[in-house]
């Protein structure tokens, strides 16, 4: 547990940056680093026992991500509260740019910025949390039941969701909606309103079904019964489940996974990386990772529960929930419990944007932790 910080009142000089750095929740940073280390080991295995091309790059990315996390953590939570709207607008701009600049080659989820390929939707997951937290920080608690005050958050969710859906990326769109719903839920929006939305969604399913791309429909159908298409869409899931199951309790040993190394399971450095861990290190290996994730989530939730301001609480819980959704959807997907929607395993899968944005998110959590006792007004103005 962190040492208690002296209660800060506005006007007090903030403690020095070094002091703040030393008082960060380092257990959380260590847990994140351990997860990333597992990722590097798995990428090394995925490359057939080589650092190139993935493991070495992933280490560099994690180093960058760690710096971003520390910078975010050192910035005061008040700063992030103020930055929420610009960050959101920036993410929306990226998504719009993505939609406009898309080369039309399909699966346009990346955008090139200064030589890097970034995935705007990954940034949006964090940005959406921040902007909704900012909104509910502003909203008075007694107004929570007013219907017209739901319009803005729905728009805030709807714009990125629609843009992502255009890409087309149904999975991420659903995740964005879920994240938004989680923040609204935490803010106290009445449960029956969620019920109405759920009913509306259910009613819309037949309509949406007709709008879906063939491959998306096929993915959902195959999810319902992967055996129907053992060499096509269902192949991934079947082989992934075989990789997991055949790992058994203790696994086949490092670099000993036959499913992986004989290419029965392609794309195993990105979304299907968990089967490497499960096949080579077995149930026990998988359990270690799951427990690390659980630890990270528990620590983060603990931080959120102790924050004084609504913005900090909502941001921490929102980011943690996002992180949880990543973990759950990815693992449920590779275990054949959910359709294949293209969600990476956080900090483990090879991919820069999701790692950077998640580490940034944890930086904000750490910032919230450092400033947990600070109270910030609705308008975040200096009092």
């Amino acid at each position, binding site marked *: 547990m962190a040492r208690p910080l002296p209660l800060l009142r506005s006007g007090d000089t903030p403690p020095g940056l070094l002091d703040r750095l030393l008082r960060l929740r380092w257990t959380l940073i260590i847990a994140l680093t351990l997860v990333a280390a597992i990722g590097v080991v798995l990428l090394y295995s995925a490359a057939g026992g080589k650092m190139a091309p993935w493991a070495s790059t992933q280490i560099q990315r994690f180093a960058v991500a760690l710096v971003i996390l520390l910078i975010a953590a050192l910035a005061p939570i008040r700063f992030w509260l103020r930055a929420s709207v610009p960050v959101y607008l920036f993410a929306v701009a990226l998504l719009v740019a993505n939609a406009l600049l898309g080369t039309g080659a399909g699966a346009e989820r990346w955008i090139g910025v200064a030589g890097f390929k970034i995935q705007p939707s990954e940034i949006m997951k964090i940005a959406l949390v921040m902007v909704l937290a900012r909104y509910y920080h502003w909203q008075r608690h007694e107004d929570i039941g007013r219907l017209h005050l739901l319009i803005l958050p729905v728009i805030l969710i709807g714009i990125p969701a629609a843009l992502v859906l255009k890409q087309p990326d149904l999975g991420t769109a659903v995740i964005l909606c879920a994240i938004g719903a989680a923040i609204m839920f935490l803010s*106290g929006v009445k449960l029956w309103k969620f019920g109405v939305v759920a009913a509306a969604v259910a009613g819309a399913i037949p309509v949406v079904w007709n709008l879906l791309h063939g491959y998306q429909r096929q993915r959902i159908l195959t999810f319902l019964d992967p055996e129907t298409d053992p060499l096509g869409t269902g192949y991934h899931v079947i082989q992934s489940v075989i990789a*997991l199951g055949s790992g058994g309790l203790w696994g086949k040993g490092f670099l000993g996974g036959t*499913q992986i190394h*004989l*290419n029965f399971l392609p794309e195993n450095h990105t979304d299907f990386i968990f089967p490497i861990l499960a096949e080579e290190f077995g149930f026990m290996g998988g359990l270690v990772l799951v427990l690390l994730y659980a630890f990270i989530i528990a620590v983060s939730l603990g931080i959120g529960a102790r924050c004084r301001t*609504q913005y900090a609480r909502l941001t921490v819980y929102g980011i943690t929930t996002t992180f949880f959704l990543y973990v759950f959807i990815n693992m449920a997907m590779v275990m054949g*419990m959910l359709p294949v929607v293209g969600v990476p395993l956080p900090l483990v899968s090879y991919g820069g944007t999701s790692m950077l944005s998640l580490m940034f998110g944890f930086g904000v959590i750490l910032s919230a932790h450092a400033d947990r006792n600070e109270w910030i007004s609705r308008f975040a103005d200096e009092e």
Partner: protein
Amino acid sequence: MSALKDIDQQRTFARRAAMLVGGQILLGGALLWRMFDLQVRNAEKYAVLSEENRINTHILIPPRGRILDRFGVPIAINQEDYRVLIVPEQVRNLAQILSRVASVVEITDEDRARISRNRRRRRRFQPLVLKTGLTWEQVAKLEINAPDLAGLRIERGLSRNYPYDAVAHVLGYVGPVTDRDKRPGRDPMFDLPEFRIGKAGLERTYDQLLRGSSGTKVVEINASGRVQRELRRKPGTAGADVTSTLDIGLQAYLAGRIAKEKAAAAVVVDILTGDVLAMASTPGYEPNAFVQGISPKTWRSLRTNPLGPLTNKAISGTYAPGSTFKMLVALAGLDSGLIKPHTGFVCPGHFSLGSARFHCWRRGGHGVVSLHNGIKQSCDVYFYNVAHRIGIQRIHDMAVRLGLGARTGIDLPRENTGLIPTAAWKKKYVRDRWYPGETVVAGIGQGYVLTTPLQLAVMSARLATGKAVTPRMVRKEDAGLPDFSSMGINPRHLAAVQKAMSGVTNEPGGTAFWTRIVEKQFAMAGKTGTSQVRRITRAERARGVIRNKDLPWERRDHALFVAFAPVDNPRYAVSVIVEHGGSGSRAAAPVAKDILLTAQKRRSATVGPTGPAGGSGTKTGGKGERRG
């Protein structure tokens, strides 16, 4: 901004947060349960699936054993060649594959038909043979032209090859496994398209020995089916070589000698061992054509050919033995005591029984005929008399003792039993009583009597030795000379018959005197036979019997000759039949003479005049010696 409202807000948050966390714990628990279910509870099932993914077991066909002649000369061998296969489930574009392969090696319409037929019948992952017998150059060309064709495979393999056409019938051939050959529990190599089993001849009789048993090669494959490495190999058992009793040199001579005839068969048996030194049947076929599976058209034409090229007439063809039967009738008579060696009958040219008349081949008759002259001059009336006196049962019993009327037990498939009739047989199968006239015609080997050329060769061997010589195609290892039991025939009777047979060839007036072997040490004893295949009517006989050369081929008499040599120390027994060849003395005896002379000369050339015949159960012989 009252603190109270803050607390309200925080309470709401705490309540909602607890619900959210509860939901997360539930979902997390579901994940862990699924993981546990897959990796611990069902680990074995998935381990098997994963192994099935990566492990592929290849059946290894062992090389088929060779068949050697008695001197070790290979007469059925394995030749290395290349074959193109397709794996139907991997094939994306069959037409493309066919056209590419066709640019290198000809693909006939029959090949195409066979492929599409097998493609429907066989399972999708079983490779189909597209074309066999490719050379290395053709394979190289194909690999350059078609490295990227999915489902195409090139394999190196061994194909059966028969260097000598002369042995076709005895060796038989191998062919693809048909559904009939598949029985549960069979070696898994039976399911491989390139596997061949013996379909006829020695290849069939000794198939079990020759084919060995399959091995397995367990390999690891990757997702695209490419072999990564070999994990285990269990070598099979190579097929054993089989050493036949044949002398390929004599066999080639014999086959060549009778190849001039339209349809004929001949057998040479080593009298001491029962070894079949040579056995041939005309017309023959090209055995190598069967190895890759012959076309239905060729098969039909071989099957429907009236001359029966696929039939080994030496064991499957049955012929009335004609006069070659007479020694046997004489022995039966002597054995019964009803006639003596000096018993004479008058031959007026015919034998009357009631109102029926049975004619002698010589119109004017032979006058007073003794047993010796009866055989030597082949007097029909003499044997009408003997047969009529002793009855069909005694003839039958002696025939059986001499190896007729039953399979000789030769180790070849499809041997015929022939037929030696009795009254009981006729009652059972013809549903009629036995007439005395039928005994009379049986006395000269006509009527119901049927024999195979091999049986006649065995009969000659038994007549020459008095022992129950049994023929064989393959010698048992290190068994030495077989010990044939005596037939229990009075040696004096036997000697009288042998002397008469010698008279046939070596005494003036003998029916085959003109085809005798002049060299004394090689001299043979024999008996001509001319068996009628048509009925000569009373009217024709009155006009004068039409001569053979004036008849259509298929109505002419069969020509037969049985013999053994050398006459004073018999070693070789031979029988020759030339279908519709006319008279035995003119068509069959010269063949027998040439064969016996060749056999004896080969023997004296290889082991000298006094030594044992080539390789008789000993380790003599070998390539060099044989050539010497």
